[in-house]
């Protein structure tokens, strides 16, 4: 069964550094998403992306965040200057038109 794959599985970064989280969505999917889960909290929506542009973003997704689909297969989340509170599990998801979202196994981001 096709899967959403995310790399790396764990990223450790110094505060203030830039980090890029990578995702390969399911190949025929058109909608792409990033969510995050801070330890002990809910899974929270960050951003959705369709037709090469952001469809919707949450209040969390401020100017420090950006997303890109640099080629036909990858979908990336960049955090320009990381903060301690960015430490979380980041989940990528994708979906077909009108279909449920399928999630990757996440990247654990640890900011030191």
């Amino acid at each position: 069964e096709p899967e959403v794959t995310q790399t790396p599985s764990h990223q450790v970064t110094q505060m203030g550094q830039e980090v890029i989280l990578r995702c390969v969505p399911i190949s025929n999917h058109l909608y792409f998403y990033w969510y995050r889960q801070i330890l002990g909290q809910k899974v929270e929506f960050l951003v959705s992306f369709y037709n090469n542009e952001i469809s919707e973003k949450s209040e969390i997704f401020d100017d420090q965040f950006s997303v890109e689909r640099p080629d036909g297969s990858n979908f990336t989340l960049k955090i320009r200057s990381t903060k301690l509170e960015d430490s979380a599990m980041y989940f990528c998801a994708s979906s077909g038109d009108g279909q449920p979202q399928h999630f990757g196994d996440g990247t654990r981001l640890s900011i030191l």
Partner: protein
Amino acid sequence: DQQVKQNSPSLSVQEGRISILNCDYTNSMFDYFLWYKKYPAEGPTFLISISSIKDKNEDGRFTVFLNKSAKHLSLHIVPSQPGDSAVYFCAATGNYGGATNKLIFGTGTLLAVQP
């Protein structure tokens, strides 16, 4: 922001019995609801969904019931198996975008199925 609530943080059930997981929501604009299962160190896995035009959807051992007037949905697992032990998340979305709109998640219920 508690738009989707799962009031039971954990549930323990004997193998072979029914597991009932509950979810409440407050936003009347939600029109599509999903259940996801999550094992440790993995991402959420889609289980089953229901549109607001229905009150029941069944897929094998899993059935989701929707009570719109009560803003309540439940997931029934019959019979429960030890492999069902995981965290179960209820999620909701709305604005008639179907499943492609952002998902609002509950806090999850940890289900333990005892052999």
